[in-house]
Structure formats: C-alpha cells, structure tokens
C-alpha cells in the first residue's frame, strides 16, 4: 500500500532511488563544506580588519597572488570534475532504466491512458488468453513485464513510483518499457502528466503477487462474468442491460460489449472505483452511479437516470461480479 520513490520495489525504481540518494548525500556534503569554509573566511576577515587596514593585506605580493590562483584553479577543476562525473552517472542510469527491450519470457501488458482511467490489456498469441481489464494491474513477482503504453485522447504519463520512472504516453505513438517487482505488494500509480479536469483522480494499482497467485487471478479473470443466482441480482443485470450502462461498459457473458468505458466483467473483485478515486463498496458505487459529476467533475461517466428502486439491485449485481 504505497506510492513512494523511497520505497523502491523494482529494478528501475531501485536504480533511480540509489542515484537520488547518492546525489543527495554528495551535494549535501559539498554544500556543508562550502558553508563551513565560508564561515571560516568571514571570521578571519573580521579579525584582519581589526588588525590592519584592508589595503595593507592586498599588497601585490607575488606569494599570496600565486597561492590564490592555485586554490581557485584547483576548486574550479574539482567542481567541473564532480559535475562531469554526475552527468555521466545520471545519463547512464537514465539509459539503464529506460531500456525499452524487455528480456525474453516477459509478460506482455498493454496500458492505454484515457480521460480519466486506465485500460489494461494482457496480450497473448492465444486469442482466448487475452484479457481486458481496467485500473488494476496484477503482475507476478520476479518476472519482467513488457509494457506497451498508448494514449487515446491526450498525453498521459504512466508512473508507479515504487516500480519505475515516469513514462509518457502519447496519442498515436506506442511507448515501450519493462518493469519488474522484486517483492509482493500493492503499489499505487498515478498519471503524471496533466491531462485535464480529472488528472488528479487518474490513479491505478499495481498488485505484485507470487506467480501461482497471479496465475489463479488471471485464470479467474478470463472467465465470463458469474451468472446472477438470486432474483435481486438478476433484476440488477436486466437493469444494467436495458439502461445506458451497457452503451459504454462491457460485461463478458452478457450482451453488453461496449469498449468505451472500463470492462466490468469482474468489477466486484477490484479494490477501487472511478480509477482509484473511491474504495469499492456498495455505498460508494451507488453514489458514483447516481451522481458521478460530484465525485469527479467533468468525468465522461454519464449521469444516467437510474430510479431509486433500481439502484439497489443494480449495485448488488455489480458487486456480485467477483
């Protein structure tokens, strides 16, 4: 449950963190040295004025002049060398973490940034193993993930601080990178490029879990939606299919197949709704369906006229889609 560059859990994030720590320590040390020297000089100067007039100490004596020149020369050279070294370090780490060619055998995941949510597609050569989901990316720990990023409308940026660096997603262009989680955990990600009204509410979760747990999750997600068993949820499904919901959302196993909004086939299994905006529970869901514009002003989720008697069956049905 974390979103922090200091809590690095992947190769890329660890590289970035180490670089940041090294920069921070080195530059703090240099800053302190400069401050200490400056203070010493101030104190000496003060004493000097008391002893003799300023002009007296600045006689063109050849000794002091050449000593001064040496000190300034050496300091300049050291500064240049340090800056040069840091540049090389920064560029090489930058190159390492933005390498776009993933190792063989990596899991292929495609992420599309949309206003204001994330479509996730697990690619596979076998068409029956292709999975569409949204706002929640499960990955196996220790296995490299080959990420393909696209944007549908405007520029977004994919950023999971604990796993990798920011990666811009640009309309009409496919960006590639790879990432890997070294330990299980739930890592929060966030759009990192201002993309409109609800940019701040465009979050997602990356859930890294052991390989067998991931496989179980994946196989379950491939299944069509569970059939409603009781009368209430059956009514809920009928309401979903007859109202405007089905015009944007897909639930595999029903007639709803639209790809405009997030796929809801296993909606009940997700941790959050509205792209990481609210915890997923019945109360929040009812609020979100009844009045999305109050929760995310400007969102493209339509305000659908659901009658109050229809709300309970509808949210019961959606939450039953585990």
């Amino acid at each position, binding site marked *: 449950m974390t979103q922090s560059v200091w809590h690095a859990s992947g190769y890329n994030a660890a590289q970035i963190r180490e670089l940041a720590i090294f920069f921070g320590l080195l530059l703090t040390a240099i800053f302190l040295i400069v401050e200490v020297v400056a203070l010493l000089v101030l104190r000496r100067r003060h004493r000097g004025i008391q002893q003799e007039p300023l002009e007296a100490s600045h006689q063109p004596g050849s000794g002091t002049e050449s000593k001064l020149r040496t000190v300034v020369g050496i300091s300049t050279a050291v500064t240049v060398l340090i800056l040069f070294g840091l540049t090389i370090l920064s560029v090489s780490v930058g190159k390492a973490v933005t390498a776009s060619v993933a190792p063989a055998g990596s899991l292929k995941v495609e992420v599309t940034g949309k206003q204001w949510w994330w479509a996730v597609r697990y690619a596979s050569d076998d068409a029956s193993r292709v999975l569409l989901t949204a706002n929640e990316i499960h990955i196996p720990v220790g296995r490299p993930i080959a990420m393909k990023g696209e944007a549908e409308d405007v520029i977004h940026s994919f950023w999971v601080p604990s796993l990798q660096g920011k990666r811009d997603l640009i309309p009409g262009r496919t960006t590639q990178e790879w990432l890997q989680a070294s330990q299980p955990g739930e890592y929060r990600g966030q759009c990192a490029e201002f993309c409109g009204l609800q940019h701040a509410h465009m979050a997602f979760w990356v859930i890294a879990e052991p390989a067998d747990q991931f496989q179980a999750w994946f196989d379950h997600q491939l299944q069509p939606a569970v059939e409603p068993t009781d009368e209430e949820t059956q009514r809920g499904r009928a309401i979903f299919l*007859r*109202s*405007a919901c*089905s*015009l*944007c959302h897909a639930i595999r196993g029903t007639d709803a197949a639209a790809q*405009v909004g997030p796929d809801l086939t296993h909606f009940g299994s997700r941790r959050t709704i509205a792209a990481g905006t609210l915890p997923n529970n019945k109360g929040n869901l009812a609020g979100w369906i009844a*009045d999305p*514009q*109050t929760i995310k*002003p*400007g*969102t*493209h989720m*339509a*305000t*659908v*006229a659901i009658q109050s008697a229809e709300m309970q069956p509808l949210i019961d049905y959606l939450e039953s889609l585990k």
Partner: protein
Amino acid sequence: MRYIAVGCCLLTLIACKREVREVRPSPAVSGILGDAGAESALRPAGEMAHQNIVNPYEGNAYAISEGQRLFNWYNCSGCHANGGGGIGPPLIKKDQRDWIYGGEPSNIFDTIMKGRPNGMPTWGAKIPEYQVWQIVTYVRSLSRLEPKSATPARSDTLEQKTSTIRPDEKGAAH
C-alpha cells in the same frame, strides 16, 4: 459613463452561451411525449401547432465537442460515418429539405430517441437525454446550423461549406 460601458461588457459575458460548461446537467426537456418533433408541417385538416421544444445546448461549444465524442463512442459513425453517410444517410445537408424527418433540434432529438424505419435504432432510454441533446447540437453543427461562434473554425472531419447551404425556400421541414 465608464461604469456603464464596463457593465455592458460584463452583460455580454452573461449572455454568452458558447462557453458554458454544464458538467452536471439538469434534467432536460423531454421531447418524445406527444410527438413533439412534428416532422412535417403537412397535416390532415390544416397545420398542427408546432410545439416549442428548445435545445438547451444551442450555440454551446462544449456541447458540440461532447456531442462529437459521443457520436463516435455510441457508434453513430458506424452508419453515418463522419457525417458523410454510409449505411445510413449523410448528416451533412445541403438544403433544409434534405432532412428526411426534419432538421429542427426537436426533430433530430426525436429521430435519435425514437428511431426511424429502415435501420435507425431507438436510442431512447439508452442514451441519457442531455447527451442526446449534445449529439443533436453536434449533428446540426455539421451542416453549419449552429452559430459560427460556437463551431470550430476548422473541423476535424468533413464539413459543410457555408456557401452551399440554401435557404429553406418552401418551408418543407419547418
């Protein structure tokens, strides 16, 4: 005098519907009750009184761009393409009389809500009414029937050239 001038300038801002962004729509006027659209002025036993159904988004730039997005999202473009037509008839009209079921906002609203013979589905109860009005505004903007101040200077797709619109000479649809 100066205050009056400033006041007048501010007043024009209030009157400007172009920039209103109503993200949380109030329930729109329902047009489907009692055939409000009145496709044709021709009626047995004289003319029928035209019901005054107003498009709440007329001249609103935000509604036009939202309508354009929805036009593609809801796959209107699947039949009507970008207004040029395909399986369905073109929506860019040369003449007011080219509208089969009328080109007034209320007519187009009715067409979308109720559907039409030979393939136009009924979208009522599927698309929220405020979004239907946004699509209506966009569809009208294709034929330059929305104020020029609200329509994009250069359209993304096809567009009607102003010079080719002929006035509604014989009052066919209006």
